[in-house]
């Protein structure tokens, strides 16, 4: 879960490195944002000489969270960092490539473009859960 003021890595080559979440657009007081949600964030750290400057407000899609998510087949997936991918208002990614794995839920939440530029889309480990008495 990404709360206001949460820092997350920016997992693409848009030029921002770290961003801090401000809001979730579309809901007045929404506390939590998770994988696949769009957030409004301010760039806290940026690669020098690239478009996003520190303190520029951007939109981003959350690609990974430490909290992770649970899927209905019983699998849970958690990541080692919080990461987001910078997008523009229409949902197109600002950078050309995403770094690191993303969970496939971003696709189901309208952000299939992020998934298309990602090196690895995780569906987790496939395993039938069996119970033996």
């Amino acid at each position, binding site marked *: 879960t990404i709360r206001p003021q949460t820092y997350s890595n920016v997992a693409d080559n848009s030029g921002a490195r770290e961003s801090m979440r401000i809001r979730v657009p579309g809901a007045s007081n929404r506390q939590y944002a998770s994988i696949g949600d769009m957030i409004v964030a301010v760039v806290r750290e940026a690669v020098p000489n690239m478009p996003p400057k520190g303190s520029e407000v951007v939109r981003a899609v959350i690609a990974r969270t430490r909290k992770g998510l649970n899927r*209905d*087949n*019983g699998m849970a997936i958690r990541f080692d960092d919080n990461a987001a991918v910078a997008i523009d208002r*229409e*949902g*197109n*990614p600002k950078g*050309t*490539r995403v770094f690191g794995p993303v969970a*496939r839920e971003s*696709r*189901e939440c*309208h*952000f*299939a*473009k992020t*998934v*298309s*530029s990602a090196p690895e*889309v995780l*569906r987790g*480990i*496939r*395993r*039938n*859960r*069996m*119970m*033996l*008495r």
Partner: protein
Amino acid sequence: MASDSQAEDEEQEDALLSDEEEETEEEDEEDNVDVDVLSNEEIDALMKEYGNVVRSDPEPRKSSAEDANADAEALSMATALATAANEVKAVDIKLFHVKPLIYWARYFLIASAFSMPQVNAIVGRIEDIAQEQYGKIPRPSGKPSGWTLMDFDIYTAGDVVVHIFLPSQREFYNLEEFYANAPLVELPFVSESSSSSTARSDAEGESEEEMISLS
């Protein structure tokens, strides 16, 4: 030793409930030898004897026959959509077979359009064809823009993903480079090449046989 191993075995079977990925870490049931590995047949036998399926994967692995059907259907749909895009004068239409690279899609159809009204026309045309001939609706993915994406499912995974770009966006995102290892599928028509891509078509030798640049 034998009864001990039986009890141990059942405890270890319960251990399968937890996140043990290695089912081979069990001790062998009929152990006269220090074998740490249960073969698949032995596990199946244990399952039959003791097991109870409580919950199964809602996305079961498809049998290879079903999968082959899905492949064929995806291919026919992808070529139909490519033809539809060609009718609306999209340029540089390429169909990549990405299934060996990605698990979540089988085919990527990439096309270029020169203006937003043309993008909208292509989107409309593709949606119509998909709906009429295959009964598929694209997954909602936002408004058409510089990069428009349409995601069609054949089974649970989206199988045909259509990307429509404005030429500048296509170069910017460069998906063809990212998926360069994906084999190109030959299309039944000759796709127009946009005039600005003649330089590129020289570089991408082997994939340009089907392209003719209009001069």
